[in-house]
């Protein structure tokens, strides 16, 4: 019954990769933002959530499907939709007051009116006294306050927050979140809906009425969860921890192949084995030293081989953005097992931790060849060359057919790093060639 403010129907978006093949970033996404709700979008890097946000902001055009704002089609940035940016996007040569007045000035609001409304916003957000300061004089938290004030002063219907707190330290981020939620609850701001894109699962669960988890390749809504708890929410309460666990479980589940999102009533989805990767699929961006460190921590007290992911994140000080890829990588190489939001070490993992450096390398290499088809393919192609080296570029071309240029490069970076560590092949930066590892090179 509540009115839909922004609607996306069957929205698809492709980007052209290097050789012209279109790559699907968003696939038939349906999304509605209603009155008086805060929605959080979660997903791993590259899952298309930022693209979705920018389509709603009118910065990118959807290739297919409809984008409606208050029932009207959206062709570009709308007056009633404001955005807060991850790296603040303040104009360094304008003072705090001038930055905040920017949107008003662009609309032609008179000087006195502008100053009055800017003063109001400054008081509201807690920047009094800093009107004449330049952004370079402010700390990160203050700068984001300016960004928020700038977005709120134009009295938008929809506020979009693009990872607004990820560039801030934990304490400052929490304070800002609480301030915004206060303004929302007390209806001090006329904003009717807020969309939060984030990497931080706790933040999403504390803020939102609805949490959507995005899958990647291609991006679609994997899972949707409604949260009916009143705000302010206690992060240590059992209900919140339960919800967070659920989200972790969903985000670490294998690649889901079904079309429509699961609902919270269906039980926790996605338990079981990680399915085998395709050759050109994205690899979790985790370096092996972190992987080893996490594994060793897992074996130690207080986990003793099994850990609740959010708890593990707190203990190691890793953010969700850092923790999830490492856990993913460990599960991929069968050194640990991801299920229901918990990470538990496998028998192989136990042997790995107990082994010496040389044996660890061998095990790592074996698992790499067994579980990552791309690494096996590289090694296989290498062994066929009489010269003992094969160029990297053909692999890059292969990946570029389904991934974008940067993604292809980052997959190769990961597989090269892992391959070097496992001593299954070596890489010469100068000549851009994959070579046999030192130990196998003929003298």
């Amino acid at each position, binding site marked *: 019954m509540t009115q839909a403010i922004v609607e996306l129907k069957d929205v698809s978006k492709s980007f052209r990769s290097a050789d012209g093949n279109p790559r699907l970033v968003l696939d038939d996404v349906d999304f509605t933002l209603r009155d008086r709700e805060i929605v959080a979008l979660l997903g791993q890097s590259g899952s298309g959530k930022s693209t979705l946000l920018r389509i709603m902001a009118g910065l990118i055009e959807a290739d297919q499907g409809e984008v409606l704002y208050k029932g009207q089609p959206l062709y570009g*940035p*709308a007056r009633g939709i*404001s955005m807060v940016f991850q790296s603040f996007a303040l104009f360094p040569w304008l003072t705090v007051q001038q930055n905040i007045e920017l949107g008003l000035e662009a609309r032609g609001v008179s000087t006195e009116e502008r100053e009055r409304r800017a003063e109001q916003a400054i008081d509201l957000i807690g920047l009094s006294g800093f009107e004449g300061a330049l952004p370079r004089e402010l700390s990160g938290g203050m700068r984001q306050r300016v960004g928020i004030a700038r977005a709120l002063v134009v009295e938008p219907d929809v506020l979009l927050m693009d990872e607004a707190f990820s560039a801030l330290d934990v304490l400052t981020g929490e304070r800002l979140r609480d301030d915004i939620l206060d303004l929302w609850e007390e209806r001090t701001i006329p904003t009717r809906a807020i969309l939060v894109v984030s990497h931080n699962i706790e933040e999403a669960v504390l803020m939102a009425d609805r949490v959507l988890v995005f899958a990647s390749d291609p991006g679609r809504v994997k899972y949707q969860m409604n949260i009916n708890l009143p705000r302010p929410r206690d992060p240590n309460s059992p209900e919140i921890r339960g919800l967070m666990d659920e989200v972790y479980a969903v985000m670490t589940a294998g690649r889901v192949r079904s079309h429509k999102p699961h609902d919270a009533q269906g039980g926790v989805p996605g338990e079981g084995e990680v399915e085998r990767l395709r050759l050109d699929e994205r690899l979790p961006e985790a370096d092996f030293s972190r992987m080893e460190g996490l594994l060793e921590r897992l074996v130690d007290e207080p986990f003793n081989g099994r850990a609740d992911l959010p708890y593990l994140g707190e203990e190691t000080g890793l953010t969700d953005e850092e923790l999830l890829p490492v856990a993913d990588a460990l599960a991929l190489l069968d050194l640990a097992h991801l299920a229901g939001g918990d990470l538990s070490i496998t028998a192989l993992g136990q042997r790995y931790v107990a082994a010496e450096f040389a044996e660890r390398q061998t095990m790592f290499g074996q698992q790499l060849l067994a579980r990552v088809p791309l690494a096996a393919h590289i090694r296989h192609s290498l062994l066929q060359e009489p010269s003992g080296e094969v160029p990297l570029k053909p692999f890059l071309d292969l990946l570029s057919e389904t991934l974008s240029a940067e993604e292809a490069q980052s997959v190769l970076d990961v597989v090269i790093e892992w391959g070097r560590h496992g001593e299954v092949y070596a890489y010469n930066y100068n000549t851009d060639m994959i070579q046999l590892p030192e130990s196998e090179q003929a003298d």
Partner: protein
Amino acid sequence: MDERKDGSARPSPLNFFPRQVVDASGNRWDWALLPIVFALLVLLAYGARQMATPYELGHEIPLSRDLSYLPYYLLRTTMRMFMALAASLVFSVVFAVLATRYRAMEKVLIPFLDILQSIPILGFLSITVTGFIALFPGSLLGVECAAIFAIFTSQAWNMAFSLYQSLKTVPAELQEAARVFQLSGWQRFWRLDLPYAMPALLWNMMMSMSGGWFFVVASEAISVSNQSIKLPGIGSYIAMAIEAKDLNAIGWAVGAMLIGVLLYDQLFFRPLLAWADKFRFEEIGGGQEQSSWLLTWLRRTEHLQRVPEVFSHALQRSNVWFKRQHDGTSIRSRNTPSSPLLTRAWDAVVAACVLIAVWQLVNFIHSAVGWTEVGHVFLLGFYTLVRVMVLIGLAALIWVPIGIGIGMNPRLSEKVQALAQFLAAFPANLLFPIFVVGIVHFQLNPNIWLSPLMIFGTQWYLLFNVIAGASTIPTELRYAARNLGLRGLLRWRRYLLPAVFPSFVTGAITASGGSWNASIVSEYVSWGNETLVATGIGSYIAEMTATGDFPRIALGIGVMCIYVMTLNQLLWRRLYKLSEDRMHF
């Protein structure tokens, strides 16, 4: 003299004046700056009036080598340079905005600018002079315009290119913020694009001004229809001094030029740089804060500082007039994708024009000059190429070790870097006559001994870039090198040379470009009625300009263009890319 802000009464003669007069009198900074402002206005008015004196082609303009005329000549030359700078600024803005907003224009404009950059200035002058004179019959203004245009061509290209580069690299988030908050094109240009580009633009303006001095002689002593016109200015003064073999006069002229540079540096550029400090975008690492006494005084005045505020008020009002009329929900915001047919048609038109131009050029060369001449000119270009490369190599051998040594010593590096920048800006060709005297006296071979002149002014670019590069070597790297005991050849090979390689390449690119430009005035140097010629394309162009052989001028310029552009593509761009990929921190 004390000022009380509350304006309370105190026993003084000021008490007997009406309130408005007392309040309106301004503070002591107003009084201190007023003489400077008035003096500038008077000078400007006088100079402007002199520029439009009546003149007929063929008349002799009265000039004198008397020292007392030097300040007046300095005024005229400086005015010309500033007018050319203003024209360059307008050109750069129009060029950069067109090239960034319209993809079709970009395809044409950027290569066009590349070519224009490679054409030496003398080339422009000979073509445009007659046109300008016809524009203003009966007045000196036509010739003035020709001179200003000549200076413009030495200033505009790097400013246009720098502005274009800045507009293309505006950070994506700021662009998105500008769109989300409904900034129109006009508002975006004045609030985002231009402020972002300001530091680089100002730096390029300073470089352009010093570039203008290099050709001041050539731009003020113009020849048209075998007649030579000398406009009143420092350039003509020096030209006359060279003809009369008056070394003293040249010395005085150089001194006057230095005073002029000092004056406009303090009164114009330093205040601008200090003001532009607020546009410094933080990611570009910390430079020092510029300070200017003039700006500080201006900010302390009560009334005079309101004068620039007129501009900011006008800007704000214009921002309101040119605001966006409709937002993203209106049908007017709908993006119609550019039809591929139209893009292909445009590409075809451009390609056709290029082919026609090349055909005309080949025809022209064939009929007017003949292919043997073309081969000969290419050979001359090759000689000059050898000179440039050898000289850059020699300069590198000398200045890179010195530069590294100075750069690693923080106290020394600041002072020497400023000195080297000044030397780079100084028009070295004003000192060439001294070299000529030496070469004639010692009966030396001009082919070898005129060559250093080419690099004389441009070697300082190498030096100050290497100093800058060496001073930014991270301290931790230095400690690590000391700790590991790196010595001798190993220290140079593995540590020092790779560390300064990027800055060396930047300096070498500028030095190479400057040397080509300088070849025209350094391979063909005259002193009195003696002329020394070194075999090369620079002297070829200079000789042909002196005799007015138009087809051969065009040929020489064309061949030099080809050499410069090929060298850029094959050598400098590759080296630059190498340094970007492999050797930055």
